[in-house]
Each structure stands twice: as structure tokens, then as C-alpha cells.
């Protein structure tokens, strides 16, 4: 079945089954492989994209439900990796394996859109649907604060050991 989608500001046509999840349309049809498959059940958040500016799980969104609103994937978050979250992620070296981070950044971007200066509680609430198997949560939280321009006191402790001493 033919569908027209607006992905990252471009209109694209695909011919797929109506119930095909947006995740697989993005990855296997449109070659936008930044959006990741983690569970297929909406439980891990790795596949998070924006639909009309709202974070959705693309594995739970059928292509037919995605035709009426603009879709933004990580590839379309900024033209050149300059979104404040992308910069903060680089500055704080947030990823370990990195596999979940597309979903993390897209969830965080949706949060900052509606709550430009989030508190820890706002962040925890918005981000707890996104699993990180490497458990980079402390840096994710910090990077969101940094992108929001919030000042926090924990940066040094997150990126450098609290102390390195030499045994006597």
C-alpha cells in the first residue's frame, strides 16, 4: 500500500503493508538506520522518534498512523550534529556501547521542547522509558541538564574519579 510520510522535513513515498511498524519502514525501507530496534514491544525506548514533536516508540507506531504528522529521527534532529543535546552528549562522553542513545536523545529532545529547564524529577520521569544496558544514566541526566543550561555540581564527579591517590 502506498503511503506518503514527512521524514526529517522531506516528503517520501513508501509502498508497504499498512500495519508495518514505522521503525522498520525507517530502517529497512528508508535506510534511516539511526533509529534502533531493541525489543519491538515499546519497553526499551531504543526506537524513539518524534511524531508531531512528541516522542513515540516507532516499533509501536504503524506506518498508516504516521502519515499525518512530521516525523523526526535522530538523523534529522539537527543538520550538523549541533543540537544542544548532541553537543552535550559529546562533551560528557555519554555513550558506552551507544546503542540506546538515539532513543535517549530523542526522548530528551522531546522533554526539552516542553520543559526547557527540567529538574532531576522531570528528567527521571521523561527518561525512565529508555533503557540503557550499559547504565550510562548518570551522564545522560547530566547531559540533559547541560543542554538545558542548568547548572549542576556533579559534573566533575561523573567524568573524573572523585580522587586518585597513590598508596603509601
Amino acid at each position, binding site marked *: 500500500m502506498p503511503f506518503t510520510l514527512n521524514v526529517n522535513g522531506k516528503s517520501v513515498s513508501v509502498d508497504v503493508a499498512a500495519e508495518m511498524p514505522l521503525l522498520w519502514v525507517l530502517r529497512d525501507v528508508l535506510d534511516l*538506520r*539511526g533509529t534502533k530496534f531493541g525489543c519491538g514491544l515499546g519497553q526499551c525506548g531504543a526506537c524513539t522518534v518524534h511524531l508531531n514533536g512528541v516522542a513515540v516508540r516507532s516499533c509501536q507506531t504503524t506506518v498508516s498512523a504516521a502519515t499525518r504528522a512530521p516525523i523526526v529521527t535522530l538523523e534529522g534532529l539537527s543538520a550538523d550534529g549541533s543540537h544542544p543535546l*548532541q553537543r552535550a552528549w559529546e562533551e560528557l562522553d555519554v*555513550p*558506552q556501547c*551507544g546503542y540506546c542513545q538515539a532513543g535517549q536523545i530523542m526522548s530528551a529532545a522531546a522533554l526539552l521542547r516542553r520543559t526547557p529547564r527540567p529538574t532531576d524529577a522531570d528528567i527521571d520521569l521523561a527518561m525512565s522509558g529508555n533503557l540503557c*544496558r550499559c547504565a550510562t544514566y548518570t551522564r545522560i541526566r547530566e547531559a540533559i541538564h547541560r543542554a538545558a543550561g542548568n547548572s549542576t555540581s556533579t559534573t566533575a564527579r561523573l567524568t573524573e574519579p572523585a580522587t586518585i591517590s597513590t598508596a603509601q
Partner: protein
Amino acid sequence: MDTPMLDRRSFLRATALAGGGMMLAIYFDPAADVLGQEGSRAPAGGAAYKPWAFIKIDPNGAVTIMGKNPEGGQGAKVHLPMIVADELGVDWKTVRIEQAPLDEQSFGIQRTGGSTATPINWEPLRQVGAAARGMLLAAAAQTWSVPASELTAASGRVQHAATSRSLGYGELAARAAAMPVPDLKTVTVKDPKDYTIIGTSARSDAVPAIVRGEPLYGIDTKLPGMLHAVYEKCPVFGGKVATANIDEIKRLPGVRNAFVVEGGPDLVRTYPVCCIGVSHSGGVAIVADSWWQAQQARTKLRVTWNEGPTAADSSAGFATRALELSKQPPAIKLYNDGDAEGALRGAAKTVEAAYYYPFLAHATLEPQNCTAHFHDGKMEIWVGSQTPREGRQVVAQSLGMNESDITVHFVRMGGGFGRRILNDYMADAAWIARQMPGTPVKLLSSREDDLRHDFYRPAGFHYFKGGLDAAGNLVAWQQHYVAFGEGEKFAPNTGIGGASFPAGFVPNFSFNASLMPMGIPTGPLRAPGTNGTTFVYQGFIDELAVASGKDPIAFRLAMLDTPRKLLPNARDAFNAERAKAVLRLAAEKSGWGKRTLPKGTGMGVAFLFAHQGYFAEIAEVSVDAMNRVRVNKVWVAGDIGSQVINPLNAVHQVQGSVIDGMGAIMGQETTIDRGRAVESTFNQHRLVRMNQAPHDIEVHFLKTANAPTGLGEPALPPIIPAVVNAIHAATGTRLRSLPISKAGFSWA
């Protein structure tokens, strides 16, 4: 354990690059078991010596350093090149890291596992960098006709201070390549006080690509004409297909092919010493235009199975059998010292406890996948694997091919955690691709496949009796470990070194085991062995401390002060002084024993020696009336030797280990029922989520005069008993079985 180093059986060679650059290489003597201590890991093969090429210097001065190991977030792709760069004498910002291809004859061991990257490579990589620097100095000396001793090298330039002359490495590279290559034994490495890169923070080279969503992982592999496959395996481990509606499946939308995969022999029940990698479960493969179509077709699949003997296995049955065995004399003697039985009889106080930890899946966030292309009798593979070389062997064995006809491209892994040490998915993909000659096929597991067909961290049952004398000293330790295997052969990753702590530190000590057979595939999970036993040992020690009336840290320090008996196992390098030092450091930083905590809040401690590193961890937790647990803060003190090579990544590994380890406390278990894994989703296998993770994990390192060691694993196990012991301190409830959610606890 001593780490294997480069020795006389390996040597350096320099090669001039076309256009005037240089490439410095190490050649391995294939006959020499340079890496033998990792277990017959010598580069195999014949006469062709190939370069282990680490450093390329282009005429324009650009420096490329190879990252030799598979990378999945551990950070060795950055910190191993840092070692080379520091000795070479270049600025880190000028270095480009390149992923090395799979070629162990040229590169030596290419493996991610066991926290081995640092200890194996620390010495040889410094020598490589220093040798290159020496050759560049020699080239400059020849150019200027001055003694090399008058020259210095730094920031990619050689300086002659006396005449204020300097030349860049790029300008010297061609000449340097022709210089005599120094003997590695004579290479002078830097004094650590002169390090400019080692010990400074360097970011992961992959982050810019990650945050832009560039394809990086195995799952992102895309080849012209590629098809997508799913593999419905028998839900019972080792079972085979009896009948399947293959013809019906082939007619479904997008389906290009479907066929029965026979599966390998049931090697699991032979309890191989190490990891087997081939899928022994048979099933049906469906190949389609898209993965989603293959998955859709799968819902129409009707298979009858020959389930085989493992259908009789269950977690409940294992628990019943373990309890029976615990009441019988142990079948296997592991370590016995003094007279534990007699000392228990004479003890002023005895403590008895049964501990349990379950089977556990790995749950890498990137589900297992592999792309294989069989063409012209050869197999080409793209895969995220921690052990690509072993994977190639598994494919060769499974398919009856020569390794030389198999090319493996290894790519970034979306997590490893030990799961990708096993290469079953690689063999499966190759097997499926061979049915489709000329067509690349990507095999991808669903999350359910991934959790139901793992090589699980084995469950373990531990039955303890401990005895204290009138002064509260630990005088007797009796432990009956009930595990899996047959006769005296332990199933993979169930064996525990009998001679490790606390063996040798208790005057009357008895540690023995009994085994029960099973057909569940087991394998290494991050911090194999210790990820279960640390909970057990440090939990029981905590019980003994409480029974003795002593402070839990003081009790542990006293244990470590016990005059130690020599252990028969020479590989046990446990150093009590290093363990004590990290315990004291963690105590100091956490204010242990000095802070007044509110009701319902408690602190717990644990320590571990593993992967040659020492870690003590202290957790402060609060538990409410509903048994909801919040980990308020964690203090970690670690000793990984003389250098913390990349502090930025060191903190990352430790903080990640702490939160990852918390997952095993609360929400993770793989239950076996009728030979099947029950849990198959993230709602059943619960990782820690952001709102449950502690906000503050203080990481302290103590540098000691020991060679640097690895950090991917040893910080994980202690958090489990630290939190569980803290729950006891907060509530008086002693938890001896994981996950504690089964006892009514949850994260706040």
C-alpha cells in the same frame, strides 16, 4: 596471575609506506605461544609472518593508531591507542584511531572479555610506541649528523635544542622506516612521570557518529540485494524440528525462502570446558524481503518439535535436587584446610545459611544478529562479536568449511557483557546464508529470541555453616556448593576456584561441591563466576560479622589479617594488603560508622578481588514500610594498579558496573520451565531504569605499584552484596536469594 608479554618470540619491523611514510609493526612468531596463558591462543598458522601494524605516520605527519580489539562500550578502542601514542610522543588530538580487521596472525589476540585488554597489552604497546620514537630519533640524528642522545621527541616533532632545529615525524617517517629496528628488550619506555596522555581523559572516538545516528552496529549492516532472516528455534534447548508447515510459509507476503535448520549436536550435555558456540537447537529459518515480513510470517508457523531430554529440566526441579544434594556428602573436594567439622562443633557460635542466585540472561540492547554472504564457495560475515576469531572457527566447524574460506568483518557491538563471546548467531547466519548462495542474508533475533536462547549465567546453590570463637573470630567455614555438571565436570562457567578468598584466611575451611546434570546452555556474563559468588561470600561474611558483634568492615579487615596459609593454586595472586587498602579507602570516603542515619536507612559493604583488580563498595540505602528500596549513594574504591589510563572511561565503567549490578539484585532472573526459558521481554527481565539509579556514585582509585589491569568487570559484583547488606542494616531482613523482588522488595 602474570600477564603474557611480548618476549623474544616476537619482534618489530618497520615498513616504508608508499609516499614516504612509515608503518611500525610487531611480528609474531607463529610457533611461539605468546598468548598461551589465555588458553592455547597462539596465533595459528604457517610460515607467513604478517605485521601487527599499530602505527602509521603519513608524510604530512598524520598519525593513525590501530584499535585491535572488538569494541562494545568497554573503551579499549581508545585507551590502548593512548598507550602507544604516549610512548610515541605525539599529541592525542592529532591521533586518528582505526579499527583493525580480524587477523590474529598479524594483530595478536583480538578479543573483548575477561577485562584482559589492559593487562595483556600494557607492556607490548608501550614498547611499540617507544620503539617507533627511537627510530624517529635515530632518523633525525642521521639527518643532522648529531648524536641521538642530544635529541628529544614530543608532540610529533624531534628537537635538537643545541641548534634549535626540529623536524616533524611526517618528515622523518620515510627515513625512520629504514632505521634498524630496536630489540624490544632494549627499548626504553617512558618514566611514568613523563606521561602526557596516559592518565588523562580521552573521549570515545565513536560518539560523534553515535549522536548523529550513523550506521555503526552489526544490525546496521546493509548489502546490495540483502534479505532478512528470522530463526524460530525449538523452545526447548537442544530440541529439533519434527514437522513444519514450510510450504505454507513460503507463500506468505515477502517470504523468499523457508527451511528447517537441523541444529548441531547437543554439546551442552557434554559440559564442554569452555564455551561452545554453535546453536544446538533446531528450528525453522524464514528469509524475507524485510525482517518485519519474516517476523509476520513466523506468526503463521506451525511446528511440532522433538523436544529432547532437556524438556525435563526446570528451575523448581533444580532447587529440589540441590536441597537433596546439600544433605548428602559433597561429591567433589575443592579446598579443605584444618578441620571445619570439628571446629564447628567446638565453636562458641555457629551460623547456617543457604544462598541462591538464578540463571541470568545477558540482554544486550542490540539483539544478536549477523549478516552472512555465501558466494563462490566462500563465506563473508559481518558481525558484532567479542571473539571474532573463535566465531570463524565455529562457523568453519559447523559448516565443514576451511577457516581460510571465511572472512569475518567485525563491527561495533551494541553491548557484549559476555553474550558475544558465544558465536551461535554467527554460525546460524552462516548456515542460513549457505542455503541462499549469492544472496547476503541478515539474521536478527527478536528480543524474545534473545532472552530465550542465551548462554545463561548459571544458577548456583550454596549451603554454609560458619563458626565463631568466644572472641568473635571466624574459626570455621564449611561450604557445600551445588552446581551443574556431571561427575567432576562442571558445566561452563559454573566452576569456582576452590583456592580463592576466603580460602587460606580461615583456619578450618571446607569448600566442596556436588553437581547435577542439565541441558541449559551456560556461559560467561560480565564478571563471570564472581557476579554470583560475591553476593554469596560477602553476604555470608556479613552474617558472620553481625553474629560476632563486630563492625562489618572491622570483621573483614580482621579476616584479611589472619595469617594466611599458602594456597596450592599458584595463579591465585590475591593480595590481602591491597584488599584492605580499598576497604579502608571506601570506609573513609563514605564516613562509615561515623554518620547517624535515619531509621530505615543503612549502609552495607562488600569487596572483591577479580580480574586482577581490587574493589570495595559501600552502598547507602533507604527502605520504606512497603519494602521499596532506594540506593541513595554508592562509594567505590578501586585498585587497578599503577595507572588509571583513561579516567573519563574509568568512571564510566565503574558507574555502569554499579548500576548494571543493581539489576541483578532486583528484577532479573531466567526461570527454566519444561526445558524452556520463561522470561522473554524487558518487563520480565528488568534492567535498572533511570529513576531507580543512584544519582551519586563516588569513584575513588588507589594507585599501587602494580601493572595496570582491566576495568570492564571487577566493579560490578560487589554492589550486589553491598546493597543487600545495606538492606539488612536498614531493616534487619537478611536476603539470601536473588532476585530480592521475589521476597517482596522493589525499587522505590
